[in-house]
């Protein structure tokens, strides 16, 4: 704690400025929420590697950088600047620049009755003045663990803007009947280095906060997408999303991280699933210097189903940490975690898959698989399953593998006339394809596919000869373990 005091000072200054700026327009409940969260953040401080949940991820680079909220020197973005990140055929696009909603860059087409897609800030303002959006008051801040998780506390302390999506009962949002495909709502978070006229750019932080409520028997597809624009200045994005899937609803959620290599990206997806709700979460991590992606579903109603699908691709010195906490709190729920990692050069990946089966969650069926491909000698993966089972009639399995591109597969492709780079690309694509194959067809699928494809092309280029020549002695890195408990 004492060591961190100096670092926390910059957050204190930011928080003081932040509350002063919002003093007049903040409802009491929100002020209390923020203040309590900030106090909690100060009490808990940043975790260290002595903390079991952070064992493989050293935060010192984040902790020692003094980040500031971006105020007043926002980059002026034009719609044309967004070209690389447009999802064709999206139902709506909400763009946030350095954490704040940018209406001029966003498009919200005509939506079915009972559907709200808006910025959280304007939704909160509306609630403050008029009879308001009951959903915000009912759900905001209710699920996120700000007591134990300092990043969620910090996010809540600076809670200001983000996306608000509310899908009314029975509405299949974006679904084209008979086509089996869905049009997504695209939430694009652009982090910039500030405007060019700004004095020397300082490391900036943003705390996007999203609330997604899908009512009973409704359906939605949401893409959260984190990108960078402009010079590579250190930036800290600390996002939190509360996703509420009510009874028998179906939700597909994407988290795409491809910021530049000076970025710290922390995100938490907290999913609350009611009876028979079916939620699919896809995480695609390809950018960022230090990335931590928390996915935390709570299967709170009977018969819920949750698929957590992920692909992380790192090179250089990227650190990509995937932390899963799947809580089975009701009987007859099924959860699946499938994560594939591809790591090149000195990249470091982490897969931490925790499954908690509560006492009453009988007939739980939980499965976890993490497969990794290491493309270089110095690439590293830490994979850790953690099962805590308090019920006695459950099925939980987990497994992990670590391997390399197989020389004999590479030779087989080349012996048929396919060049080495192309052969490597095909094999990487095949490995990544296991994850892409779990995404339902549609615009979001195609978008995810193109993001991954672009990333793999760069990785397929010739690697340092030392690690890949056929002459090098065969190393057997393969390990496989599977346990049933």
């Amino acid at each position, binding site marked *: 704690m004492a060591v961190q005091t100096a670092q926390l000072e910059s957050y204190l200054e930011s928080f003081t400025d932040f509350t002063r700026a919002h003093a007049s327009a903040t409802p009491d409940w929100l002020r209390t929420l923020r203040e309590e969260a900030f106090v909690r953040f100060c009490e808990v401080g940043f975790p260290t590697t002595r903390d079991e949940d952070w064992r493989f991820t050293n935060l010192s680079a984040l902790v020692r950088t003094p980040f500031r909220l971006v105020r007043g020197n926002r980059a002026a973005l034009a719609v044309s600047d967004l070209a690389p990140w447009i999802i064709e055929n999206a139902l709506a696009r909400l763009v946030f620049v350095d954490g704040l909603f940018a209406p001029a860059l966003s498009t919200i087409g005509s939506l079915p009755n009972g559907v709200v897609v808006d910025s959280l800030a304007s939704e909160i303002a509306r609630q403050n003045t008029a009879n308001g959006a009951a959903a915000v008051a009912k759900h905001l801040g209710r699920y996120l663990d700000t007591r134990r998780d300092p990043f969620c506390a910090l996010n809540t302390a600076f809670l200001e803007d983000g996306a608000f999506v509310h899908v009314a009962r029975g509405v299949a949002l974006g679904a084209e009947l008979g086509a089996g495909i869905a049009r997504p709502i695209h939430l694009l978070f652009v982090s910039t280095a500030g405007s060019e006229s700004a004095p020397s750019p300082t490391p900036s932080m943003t705390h996007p906060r999203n609330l997604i409520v899908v009512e009973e028997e409704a359906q939605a597809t949401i893409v959260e997408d984190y990108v960078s624009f402009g010079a590579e200045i250190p930036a800290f994005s600390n996002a939190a999303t509360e996703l509420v899937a009510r009874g028998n609803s179906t939700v597909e959620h994407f988290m795409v991280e491809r910021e530049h290599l000076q970025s710290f990206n922390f995100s938490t997806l907290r999913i609350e699933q009611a009876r028979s709700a079916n939620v699919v979460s896809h995480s695609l991590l390809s950018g960022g210097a230090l990335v931590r992606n928390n996915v935390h579903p709570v299967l709170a109603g009977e018969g819920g189903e949750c698929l957590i699908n992920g692909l992380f691709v790192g090179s250089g010195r990227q650190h990509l940490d995937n932390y899963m906490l799947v809580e089975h709190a009701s009987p007859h729920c099924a959860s699946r975690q499938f994560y594939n990692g591809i790591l090149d050069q000195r990249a470091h990946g982490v897969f931490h898959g925790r499954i908690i089966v509560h006492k009453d969650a009988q007939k739980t069926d939980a499965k976890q698989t993490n497969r990794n491909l290491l493309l270089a000698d110095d690439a590293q993966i830490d994979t850790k399953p953690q099962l805590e089972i308090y019920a006695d009639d459950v099925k939980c399995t987990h497994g992990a593998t670590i391997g390399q591109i197989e020389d004999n597969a590479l030779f087989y492709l080349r012996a048929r*006339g396919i060049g080495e780079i192309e052969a490597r690309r095909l094999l990487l694509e*095949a490995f990544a*394809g296991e994850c892409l194959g779990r995404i339902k067809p549609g615009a979001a699928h195609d978008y995810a596919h193109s993001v991954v494809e672009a990333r793999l092309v760069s990785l397929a280029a010739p690697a340092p000869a030392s690690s890949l020549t056929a*002459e090098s002695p065969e190393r057997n890195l393969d390990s496989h373990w599977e346990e049933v408990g």
Partner: protein
Amino acid sequence: MSLLQIRNLHAQVGGHEILKGIDLTVNAGEVHSIMGPNGSGKSTLAQVLSRHQAFEVTGGEILFNGKDLLAMKPEEAACEGVFMAFQYPVEIPGIGNAYFVRTALNAIRKYRGLDELDAMDFLPLYREKMRLLDMDEKFMNRSVNEGFSGGEKKRNEILQMAMLEPRLAILDETDSGLDIDALRIVAQGVNVMRSPERAMIVVTHYQRLLNYIAPDFVHVLVDGRILRSGGPELALELEDKGYGWIETEAGQIAPASA
């Protein structure tokens, strides 16, 4: 000019010399069989011809169509027209069979300055060859060799050969592990490919395959050297007497010629 000329080829793997001076000339239109006991170097020769990098060539030369084959990467050799049907075809999860062959075919076509084939041009051709090999169309979209039986894998090799139309086809123990029906289908697929422009090298441990694919020449490889060459009758003689006969004979000859 001969299609393939191997002169005094020496090769080793992991410091062990396996090929100890191979001389072999193959002309277009010919089918050569290379027979020999386990460990004689048959597969090594096939792998060297398909340019597997794990086998280090320590001496000699190979000319393919007048070009230096040993200077080629595996993909270059394939594009020049060398095809090896693998003894142990590799399973590649996640890559569809048809997609794989089309990618390979287009890589070769591109190398030769031909237009690439799109799926519409490719599929009818692929289906036709599948029928020839009595393969179910469901194999088209399955991952390459994944979960295939031994016989299915071998048929898939010949299917690839039929699609890629090589100038030199090397069959590395394509018969091993096949039952008689599968062997017939595979042999039929191979025989259809015989042509005055194409040469084949059939590597086998057993004589049985040669009942179905009649070779023009038979060579016996023992301990990294070709000890005997002859016509089809040599295979029958081997069937009768076994490899021990050649080895003994060679053992007797060796000191005399030293």
